[in-house]
């Protein structure tokens, strides 16, 4: 009887620990954005994205320093940071949300899970509720959050970002954002 009680207590402890879940984190995730017009294709990459995921509730957070986006052309980078994103005034873009189908993601088993993430995306001082389709790839202690640029399109005017008339032909009104962040269990 004593053994049974001890076994049950052990199972209870294990399941409590499992429910508490794990936190996955990175400070070196990658976010890219892409703008296409007939005049010019513009792409930029940020390899210093901070991201975190809590496996129990499926909570996710992203934080991006706008100044760490790297462009191919220096002048475009300067325009992006200073004129469009006004990085001195709004230095960060953030996302805070929840994985809608978190229950179907088995964090203990390697695999790829298609999910949708719903939350608040804040950029240029404007917050909007959005839902992004993507996937979680579990590989050991690593959980990689990915989406395709086609799934995550942002209208610049929705976030109060104004592109001067002279540059309107070069910068698209809709920007595709691609996330690829490999988070490590902490």
């Amino acid at each position, binding site marked *: 009887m004593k053994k049974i009680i001890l076994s049950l207590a052990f199972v209870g402890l294990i399941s409590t620990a499992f429910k508490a879940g794990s*936190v996955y*984190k*990175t*400070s*070196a*995730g*990658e976010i890219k954005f892409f703008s296409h017009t007939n005049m010019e294709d513009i792409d930029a990459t940020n*390899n*210093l994205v*901070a*991201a*975190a*995921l*809590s496996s129990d509730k499926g*909570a*996710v*957070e992203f*934080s991006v*320093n*706008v*100044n*760490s986006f*790297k*462009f*191919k*052309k*220096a*002048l475009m*980078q*300067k*325009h992006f*940071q*200073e*004129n469009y994103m006004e*990085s*001195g005034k709004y*230095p*960060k873009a*953030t996302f805070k949300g929840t994985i809608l189908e978190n229950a179907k993601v088995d964090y203990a088993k390697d695999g790829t899970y298609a999910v949708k993430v719903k939350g608040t995306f804040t950029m240029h001082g404007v917050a909007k509720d959005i839902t992004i389709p993507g996937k979680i790839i579990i590989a050991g202690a690593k959980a990689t959050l990915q989406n395709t640029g086609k799934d995550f399109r942002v209208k610049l005017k929705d976030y109060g970002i104004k592109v*001067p008339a*002279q*540059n309107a032909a070069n910068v698209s009104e809709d920007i595709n954002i691609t996330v*690829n962040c*490999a988070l*490590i269990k902490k």
Partner: protein
Amino acid sequence: MLFLEITGILSLLLTVTVTVLLISLKMLSTDALIIPSLAFLVVFVFIVISIRYARRDIHKIHELHDHGFYPMGRLLVYAIGVAMIGYTFFLLFTQKDFFTSIGSIIEAEMILVLGILIMYYTYTLHYLIKNEHLRHEHANFFDFFWVMIFPIILVAGSVFFLFSQTTEAVVSGRPDFEVTAGKILAEFEKNDSVANLKYLNKKIKLASHVVEITGDSSILLKLAGGIEGVTINCGFDKSQKEKVAAIIEGDSVVVLCSCGGFTKPKDAGSLLSEKYLELNSCNLLQQITLKPSIGTDIENPNIDSGKK
């Protein structure tokens, strides 16, 4: 029509168009226009007075020489022209990283073009007055070159240069600030808005020891900041993989990076609980195994904050 008038109007239109375009693209600060505008105003007044007086009575042009304002004004205008051309070279040789600063290039170009135009117009006007006619019937190639071709080549060349300039994957050149890790973090901790204004996108050189090496698409070294729970995250481009491959946790490094900004948790319940200063496009300058006391510069122990 007078050669001076037609080329003068064209030069003026060209200058105004380029200036308005640059200001509307936010590539030029209106502050940069103060010196050229003042010089231009003086020269404009001088030329207008000279032409107006001379045209009033074409037979008395030579009398201009006897008027006090003309020889004195001419010398003043020459001096302004020389000063403007000289100022361009002053900017070129004294301003740090002149060729990477778009604003500096444009300001210097405008001053140079206006300086040359001032010298040219004053000389041509003097030549015409001396020969007692205001019709420049023998305008040669050099007249057109200095007034029209040179400014157009300069503007077109610099526009091409600016638009084709690529970004650096690795920061190089002289640092804007050489600081200790503890000092810069203390400034961001105290007031990150003020520190952002000072350091954002500036080249920072600092030394500390590595507490964590991470990264996937790029390489990230977390350096000790001398403040509990705060690190300095140095991002290296993947092209630097070989250079930083030998670094292990505990090593001391000297890095030159661009400042990306300070990150701190938004609220108490945030999953992103780390507090750190983000530096990007880092360049590993030195790697040593000796572990210094946090915040001490490896190359120069006397290193302190303060703009270089």
